[in-house]
């Protein structure tokens, strides 16, 4: 047999080393500066006011949360299916979802706005608005600040527990090499993925769907899930490419792994389109006022332009671009499409969140008014997220060195 043995992984450059503190400093510093700048613009009102800042913050938060949740799915589903191919790359996902405690802290501004009864973000949180609006009144059993807080505590508890268990177990295996750890993680993956599905769904309802409290769509959780997987696949590809450019993981991660990551990205580009089409077409076809309002603001006027961008740039163009085997096996083109999809996913979130601002989710929402504040909040949060990941990964190996299926992962080839 001519395949590399797991030894090569041990000898690989597989630690962040000095890169870790460097990323932590730059990304962390940048994130804090940008967020403070955004907050100042919000408070002074020159960027659209506090409500605008909170909306942009929510969009940014949904964006980074989706990356972390996508990573969690990657870890869980690969354990669930006893996958071997991804063994050398799974640590990247484990580190990415390890950022959950940071995300919990970053969620506080949103939670505080709800607890303060501030209606500029979630209109249902404002008692004044909620008491006058019949529909919100009907949903008050679910959409109220106390239950909202309880739910988010549960979500983060579940996510932090899952990420701690899987990252921790995997890191412990780096030392002990105990295959029993893998067996245990596999065993728990089914229950974890069940909890993951429920928490992700309700989190997406709470964070994004309830921004427009009149609107409802039972597929929305799946839609957010599809976007999350795209976001993480794209993020992970970029991280792996950048690490390899810095000389890391050169021997552990081969073009075959990138090819498979690309395939998953491609598959979920299609899956996202399928879910997005199902949601849109059914509401468009049914054409009942309870549902169409949400889409009406988003497909007419300047938001309609963004919707068209999503149709073409979130689906048609990358679908054609990623279809060929060569596009997925060429790192330049693969990382281009990963970058592209990450930006598109961000636009998708922006398109979901921002039209609610000013219109309380119903009535005439203003068109696209892109502001410096939006970029500051989104990029700021993303930087903090990267810094968080660097913090989690600063000491541990970037590849699970004693993973029992390492040999299989190193040996596999795409037919």
């Amino acid at each position, binding site marked *: 047999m001519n395949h590399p043995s797991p030894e090569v992984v041990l000898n690989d450059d597989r630690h962040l080393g000095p890169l870790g503190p460097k990323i932590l400093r730059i990304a962390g510093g940048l994130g804090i500066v940008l967020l403070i700048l955004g907050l100042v613009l919000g408070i002074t009102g020159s960027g659209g006011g506090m409500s605008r800042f909170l909306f942009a913050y929510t969009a940014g938060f949904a964006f980074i949360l989706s990356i972390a949740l996508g990573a969690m799915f990657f870890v869980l589903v690969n354990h669930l*299916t006893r996958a071997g191919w991804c063994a050398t790359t799974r640590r990247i996902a484990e580190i990415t979802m390890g950022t959950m405690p940071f995300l919990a802290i970053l969620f506080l501004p949103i939670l505080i706005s709800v607890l303060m009864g501030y209606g500029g973000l979630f209109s249902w949180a404002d008692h004044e608005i909620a008491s006058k609006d019949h529909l919100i009144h009907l949903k008050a059993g679910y959409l109220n600040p106390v239950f909202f807080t309880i739910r988010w505590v549960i979500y983060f508890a579940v996510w932090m527990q899952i990420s701690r268990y899987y990252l921790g177990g995997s890191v412990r295996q780096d030392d002990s090499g105990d295959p029993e750890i893998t067996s245990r993680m596999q065993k728990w993956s089914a229950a974890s993925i069940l909890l993951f599905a429920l928490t992700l769904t309700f989190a997406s309802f709470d964070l994004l769907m309830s921004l427009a409290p009149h609107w*409802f769509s039972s*597929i929305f959780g799946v839609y957010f899930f599809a976007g999350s997987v795209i976001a993480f696949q794209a993020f992970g590809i970029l991280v792996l490419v950048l690490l390899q450019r810095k000389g890391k993981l050169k021997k552990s991660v081969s073009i075959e792994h990138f090819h498979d990551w690309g395939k998953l990205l491609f598959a979920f580009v299609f899956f996202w389109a399928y879910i997005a089409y199902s949601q849109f077409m059914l509401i468009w076809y049914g054409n009942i006022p309870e549902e169409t309002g949400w889409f009406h603001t988003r497909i007419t006027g300047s938001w309609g332009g963004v919707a068209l961008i999503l149709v073409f740039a979130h689906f048609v163009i990358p679908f054609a671009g990623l279809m060929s085997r060569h596009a997925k096996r060429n790192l330049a083109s693969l990382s281009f499409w990963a970058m592209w999809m990450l930006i598109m996913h961000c636009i998708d979130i922006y398109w979901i969140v921002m039209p609610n601002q000013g219109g309380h989710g119903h009535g005439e929402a203003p068109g696209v008014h892109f502001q410096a504040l939006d970029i500051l909040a989104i990029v700021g949060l993303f930087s903090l997220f990267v810094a968080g990941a660097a913090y989690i990964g600063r000491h541990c190996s970037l590849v699970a060195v004693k993973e029992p299926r390492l040999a299989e992962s190193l040996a596999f080839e795409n037919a």
Partner: protein
Amino acid sequence: MSNELSSVDFLADDPTQRAPLVSPDLEFKDVTETVCGVAEKPRPPKAWYVAFGISLALTGMLFSMIAYLVITGVGVWGNNSPAFWGFPIVNFVFWVGIGHAGTLISAILFLFRQKWRTSINRFAEAMTIFAVVCAGLFPGIHVGRIWFAYWLFPIPNQMEMWPNFRSPLLWDVFAVGTYATVSLLFWYFGMIPDLASLRDRAKGKIAKLLYGIFSLGWSGSARHWHRYERAYLILAALATPLVLSVHSVVSFDFAVAQLPGWHSTILPPYFVAGAIFSGFAMVVTLMLPARLLFGLEKIVTMRHIENMNKVILATGMMVGYAYAMEFFIAWYSGSPSERFVFINRAFGNYAWAYWIMVSCNVFIPQLFWFKKLRRNPWVIMFVVLFVNVGMWFERFVIAVTSLTRDFTPASWGYFSPTWIDIGMLVGSFGLFFTLFLLFLRFLPIVAISEVKGVMPQAHGHQDGGHGEVKEAAEAGASTNS
């Protein structure tokens, strides 16, 4: 070939080492022998005759009932205002759903490099074709005047009219038609090399001629294999979104309407998950006895069955998720009619059907969480039979509860099937099993060449020199291309 299976642990779940997919004592020759042997035996087992006789009788009953229906009119069914969609649509969706497992096993698992699929894919694909035949029957006869069924197709007719392409019912025609065609091509395409095996072993003149014709003169040439594999991969890649689309389109039949309980955006993925769920249950239902009856235990191991059970559990949970989402969003929508319909489903006239559905589809499959239970043939049979029942009831609940409780209380009603309705449902099983038993008797029921391809010998481990060849091969490839 003796039965010393106990020495091999197919079910080992050891992360350091993959358990064997098929019995390690098998040679290529044994695989050919085992599978072709089924079709070559002069006489099938007695159980086959019994099953075939019953199925044929039921098929006869089905077609007599269809004749009666055509002569008399669709009034022989229980369909009446307000439930104009009764058993025919329920049976249609049920059978189409069953048909999804074949393509899933063939295509999606193929793309996911799930090599265990090779032992069961032929079986599941055949089941797909026959299930789609049963499914296609019902909309065909539901039009009443079946000699006008060609109006479904965009053929310029004597009225110079075109069908309405914006209607989900026409999407169905295209989706199910495409699905039936592509499944058939996929099934047959995969079978060509195995038919050639039967051809080369055939003794009788007729067998030689027929297997010869259908194997198209396959010679096993490497250049042919090259294009064959490419085509197979692409067919799999095409069939994967197709399988998603077909049941999504079926769900559109309901979901584009404004009727509460039908108009829900989760319906497309929910229907797809349900279809896979029911299809796998049916594969297991058929595979469990077939592997014993035809001595396939070394090729279709308990591992295969367990994997399918896991898929059943997973898709069952997805279906449960969809039930929960529908319920939650109905409440969350704040719309009184939405809220009413779901309360009515659970506690109204059809509560019995609803709870049959939930018990069979969500509660009973929970048994598969336990390793012991999902490896016990009796428990497996118990669960999958209930899943089959539950999935039929799911479609019944969706179609009937919403239709009989629409927006106008004045038009509410209660649907009761006639004996023709029930007879046709039973008869469709007869048709399905008749076709399936014929397949078991005359065609290669396991993908012989694919199973050989995943055996350890296929990678040339035993005769050594792999690395050497590979290097030489790569050198050659660079000079030749």
